[in-house]
């Protein structure tokens, strides 16, 4: 599903329970013109900036990284991490591309439980 269609679907689902999720009100809360948000949802214009996508994610209760990926973008903090050690991270990501989710999760950092 395209970025715009997905945003519209999620916003409309929220709007069915809460009128605050109209195009006008959501646009106002994320700081864009309602007409611009409509165009984004219809796919008439390219997805907005990272900051606006983050604001949309916050507003709609969506994961910002997922929305950024749908918009063909990579979060600026991830870009900064990769730019710092490009070869290492490029290599790591390529090597991990086919690893199943459960194995990837084992690499993620755990909150340590101690003695209490």
């Amino acid at each position, binding site marked *: 599903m395209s970025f715009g269609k997905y945003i519209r679907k999620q916003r409309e689902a929220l709007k069915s329970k809460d009128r605050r999720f109209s195009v006008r009100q959501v646009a106002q809360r994320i700081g864009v013109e309602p007409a611009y948000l409509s165009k984004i949802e219809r796919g008439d214009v390219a997805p907005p900036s990272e900051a606006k996508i983050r604001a949309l994610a916050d507003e709609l209760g969506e994961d910002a990284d997922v929305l950024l990926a749908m918009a063909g973008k990579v979060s600026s903090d991830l870009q900064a991490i990769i730019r710092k050690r490009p070869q290492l991270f490029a290599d790591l990501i390529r090597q991990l591309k086919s690893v199943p989710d459960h194995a990837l999760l084992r690499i993620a950092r755990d*909150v340590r*439980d101690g003695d209490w």
Partner: protein
Amino acid sequence: MIELLNNQLTFRFPEVHQKAVCSIDFQRTLRIPDDNREYPLPPGLGRFPVEHVDDFADKLPKAWQRHGGVFIPMYQSEALWINFSGLYPCAVKIAAGKINAVSGEAWSNGLSDNPQDYAVIPEQPWLDGFNVSEGFIRQFVAMPLGEGFTAEEQITGAAEHGGLQIIVYPMKHNVYVEHFERVMGADLGELDMVCMESRVYESVPDMGLAPGGLMRQQIYEDEYGIDAWDQDNGFRCFIHLANSAQYLAITGHQPPHKPPTANDYTSAGLPWFDYYSDSKVLSGSDKLGKLTSVAAKVIEKGKGLLPDNEPVHPKTVKIISKGNVVRDGKF
């Protein structure tokens, strides 16, 4: 495993079920007046920042290092609520200073159903305080340990643990399949710190949670029964409470600014909330029901009156229900 991302703890149980995931975050909120009047649910004002203890181990007391887990900054007399999210059913036990917030009993890792000492996610969307009577809680309010305010000190007479403790058990695989996958093929979708000084806070005056104002909040009975929970696969976490000044000194990060007072928030016409569910409600804990609230304790100690504790009269109370559990209050 427990992952910390975006100030949220995510508990995953891939050994039990791929969908067995639940998330817990700690919401900043205003302190409701502690005047024995009943208040609706206050708003969420955003997540508390959460830090790994291990990232600042050399600046933290040895006890915190031994406990592991995470820490959050709180101002004295600041309130919090615990926000649960996730669609895979999980049983969650919450304690403050190792006193169970639902049953009032001392901490134990396992679950008990007599009386029930845990909440069930997602039926229970949040927990704002101590289960003092049926349909009512007393708000979690941060107070320094050692002054007799916290639930832990009032029940055990000792200021030993402080903080918050959480353990989460997922629903057993077969029970989940029986209840959900056979019935409807549930679609759970995707669920989702610089040092200013090198001082070691060996004697950090720990914070604990004390009972504040009275709030309408129900804690729901476990409709699945205790045998539904996979007690061989639980994960637990100790959440330490650092006072805001220590937090700044330890991490170099500014803690969030103080939340508005209940009076300022209400005067601005901003919404409070009431949550409705048909689920059966647990009765309150006798032990927790006997706790003395912070404001009463202040008077008892001859320290005058608790500041910013004037009664408020919420005019806008939004009714929320299952499937619509947004409790944001932009201030």
